[in-house]
């Protein structure tokens, strides 16, 4: 994968980091310049609120500033920052809710076993980005993603939008890689379903006449799915 190869290359930030560690604020500010846009977009994707995203980004850089000497450079500086930003944004998210949604895996043992089968299957007749005005498209995309359970939305955002690896996503969310994969599949299928209902060409809809066995995955298949991810 591109991301893992990128980590093996020398960290472009290393010279600036060394100077910042030696007390040079200009070098630290250079690193802030280099990463602030990415981290702001990252925080917006998770928090979906401008004020919270700003607070999370500021808090991330303050933590980085305070703990600069503790950073041992086992990972790239950018990866370290992303981890701090991920943890910070998730803390904000939990605080924001009076009744916080549990992101840990103990609560969704049963739910993870259920993988919805694609129902509305139809090719998208036109390129939806051209078919609709961009604003309208964005409203549809926002609506679909807002409708996802938060734990699925977060995995989709981190993995597919921000582009984090499965193991990084697992680390930031504090769940297993197997659960990241299952949640990602559920999120992708749910979004596909919603968008196909919007963009799918009814005239070209395919009704499933071929044998799918059961309509949804039974318990045994779901267990196999989890086992295959855990293997």
């Amino acid at each position, binding site marked *: *994968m591109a991301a893992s190869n990128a980590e093996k290359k020398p960290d472009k930030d290393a010279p600036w980091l060394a100077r910042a560690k030696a*007390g040079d*604020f200009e070098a*630290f*500010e250079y690193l*802030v310049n280099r990463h*602030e*846009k990415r981290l*702001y*977009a990252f925080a*917006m*994707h998770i928090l979906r609120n*401008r004020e919270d*995203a*700003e607070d999370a*980004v*500021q808090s991330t*850089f*303050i933590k980085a*500033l*305070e703990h600069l000497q503790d950073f041992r450079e086992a990972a790239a500086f950018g990866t370290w920052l992303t981890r701090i930003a991920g943890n910070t944004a998730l803390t904000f998210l939990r605080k924001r809710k009076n009744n916080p949604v549990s992101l840990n895996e103990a609560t969704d043992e049963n739910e993870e076993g259920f*993988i919805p*089968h*694609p129902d509305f*299957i*139809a*090719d*998208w007749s036109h390129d*939806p*980005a051209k078919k609709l005005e961009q604003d309208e*498209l*964005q409203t549809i*995309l926002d609506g679909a*993603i807002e409708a996802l359970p938060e734990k699925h939305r977060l995995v*989709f955002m981190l993995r*597919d*939008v921000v*582009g984090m690896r499965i193991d990084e996503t697992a680390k930031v969310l504090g769940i297993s890689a197997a659960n990241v*994969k299952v949640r*990602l*599949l559920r999120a*992708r*299928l749910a*979004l*596909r379903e919603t*968008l*196909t209902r919007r963009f*799918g060409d009814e005239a070209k809809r*395919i009704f*499933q006449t*071929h044998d*799918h*066995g059961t309509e949804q*995955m039974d318990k045994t*298949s779901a267990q*196999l*799915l989890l086992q*295959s991810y855990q293997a």
Partner: protein
Amino acid sequence: MKCEDMLRMLNDYVDQEIDPAVCDQFEAHLEDCNPCQVVVDTIRKTIKLYKEGEVYEIPIAFRDRLHQTLRERWLQKNDNKT
């Protein structure tokens, strides 16, 4: 390979992380199964739309505030050291 198996492998296939041997079976199934072809295609389009869709620009006023705050923190921290 049945459609259920295809669903199970969908992530790995779309992410190009599928075992090459399984990939051949997956693609053989796709060739004969139009619904699965459409599901794979629309899953890819879904991911692409979200990946390209939401662009958040950092607000300039916030950026200025951020840099000011960090400069103050930096000075504070270094003052405490001396």
